């Protein structure tokens, strides 16, 4: 019996909106809206991300896979080899009363990106889609961006020995394809598209939830006038940001530069003057003492 060739009727990575497939001179900013209320914790996004970006497994990837042992969350954090992380928040105050919150975390592609601000090699760039990408051939692994990120997103990838994170599938979006994670998401918890459209959709969803009785529903990072000029990957949450392991008030690292620089400059001037004056005084005392001896 000969080999039968199956006809291709559809591609899993089919082009999305034509507006993105054939970008004009300046494409519209794109990103993710993640509705955490419909995340089922299946981790399809994690798997799709790893497969498309050829990221290694954690640990040695073989017989000694690292398990957290305390949760269904075994990824535990975003890292150089895990660019998607489904967080599991178990809220069970009573045995039969409680809820599971789930949230697929990823780089926020901040409009004012702290990592991009501090990078001393110019490895971190903003793309034409307003997303933030680390160029692996430029990064030298100084790790400045790791401490600068207010969300703990970036880490060293120990295969490339450079800092790495989600690229918002630049290689896919630049040819009009949807990022691997949102493509794989079975509940549309992760939605990809132009930011302006996503904001409208997200606001409508938050209103709908509040009308249905989930009064805690709100959008995290959707406000362009909010922290960091808004996030190009924003979230619908139903609890405090800290419960999801997110900072309430993310800031730019440069906020301390002026004050810190001014204090250090004042300190330097004081030290130099005090040093010069006391040294001069010490020498004058010596000269005066030797003059007395001669007299």
């Amino acid at each position, binding site marked *: 019996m000969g080999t039968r060739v199956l006809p291709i009727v559809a591609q899993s990575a089919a082009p999305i909106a034509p507006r993105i497939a054939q970008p004009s001179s300046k494409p519209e900013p794109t990103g993710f809206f993640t509705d955490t209320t419909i995340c089922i914790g299946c981790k399809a996004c994690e798997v799709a991300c790893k497969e498309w970006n050829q990221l290694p497994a954690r640990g040695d990837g073989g017989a000694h896979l690292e398990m*957290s042992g305390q949760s269904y969350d075994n990824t*535990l*954090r*975003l890292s150089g080899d895990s660019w998607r992380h489904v967080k*599991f*928040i178990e809220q069970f105050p009573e045995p039969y009363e409680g809820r599971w919150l789930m949230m697929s975390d990823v780089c926020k592609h901040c409009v004012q990106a*702290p990592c991009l601000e*501090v*990078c*001393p*090699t*110019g490895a971190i760039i903003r793309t034409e889609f307003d997303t933030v990408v680390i160029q692996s*051939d*430029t*990064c*030298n*692994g*100084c*790790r*400045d961006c*790791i*401490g*600068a*990120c*207010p*969300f*703990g997103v*970036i*880490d*060293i990838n120990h295969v490339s*020995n*450079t800092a790495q994170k989600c690229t918002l599938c630049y290689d896919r979006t630049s040819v009009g394809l949807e990022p691997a994670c949102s493509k794989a998401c079975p509940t549309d918890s992760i939605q990809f598209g132009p930011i302006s459209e996503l904001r409208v959709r997200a606001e409508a969803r938050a209103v709908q939830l509040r009308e249905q009785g989930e009064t805690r529903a709100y959008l995290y990072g959707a406000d362009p006038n909010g922290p960091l000029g808004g996030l190009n990957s924003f979230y619908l949450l139903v609890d405090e940001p*800290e*419960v*999801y*392991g997110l*900072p309430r008030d*993310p800031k730019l*690292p*440069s906020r*301390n*530069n002026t*004050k*810190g*620089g001014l204090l*250090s400059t*004042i*300190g*330097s001037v*004081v*030290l*130099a003057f*005090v*040093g*010069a004056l*006391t*040294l001069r005084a*010490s*020498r004058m*005392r010596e000269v005066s003492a030797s003059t007395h001896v001669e007299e």
Partner: protein
Amino acid sequence: MQTSLPSTFFTASPDYGWIIILYFFVGGIGGGALMLAGLLRMFGRPEDRAYIQIASVLSLIAAVVSGILLIVDLSSPLRFWHMVIQNHTLLPMFKWWSPMSDGVWILLVFSAFATGAAAQSFVDVAWVPKPIARIVRVLTMPALVTVGALGGIASGLALAGYTGILLAATNRPMWSDSAWLGVLFLLSAVSTSLAALLLASHWRRVGETPTREWLARFDNITLVLELAVMAAFLVSLGNAAIVFFNGWGVLLLLGVIIAGIVVPFFIQRRPSHGVVLPAVLVLVGGFLLRTVIILSSEAVHVVGTQVVR
């Protein structure tokens, strides 16, 4: 309660660790030493040449060691040059608003002044080959000596102080919750360089001179300023001070503040004080300060959604 934690606690550590602790310590001593060499050259006595020599050599050694430590610390060390030259365009790489980029250029300029200072201080030494001495002698022209001294003071102080600003320009707990870290590191660096110079001159058997008295007196002024800035730093932390509510806080109090600042201050106030004990205490305190500041913050991390410290 996790909801009361500052936003900086929900971040990942850059894992700077021991290499960077050592760099901050060595670089601080080098920066302070070059400043002292410049001050002694401009306002000191002709007999201070031995001190200038020691301070210049200390700064040159610190420049070389600092460069090596920083390169070794990179995850891709062979790409160290990407810090100063853009790999795609081969144009200079400089971002004035990035303290790490500033620091790379500060270290380069500092290294040039440290080399010049060392060359100036050894120009009349007998074992320096004549052709080299002839070239170096150009550096001893009065105008160049003044430029070297002023440049050494400025670049030395910049190297001593930028490291704290670098840590503050992150989003990590405690480092970025205060703007006082730069000036704290600056004062600690100058204090440790004074201690290193006192210790080295003692070992080199440089005679008991008024300059040694000045070094000890200047060290005490620096220690008082450091204590005041330490208090301002701790108060400015607010909620983020909880990173010190553990063994690190005990080490900060006993190792840095008591043993590294208060005790050497009182020993050096006595007219007949020895050199070695207070100098060693100041050096140990300076090293512990950098250790506590870096490792106590790096102990904070997020597992799943929980902040662990």
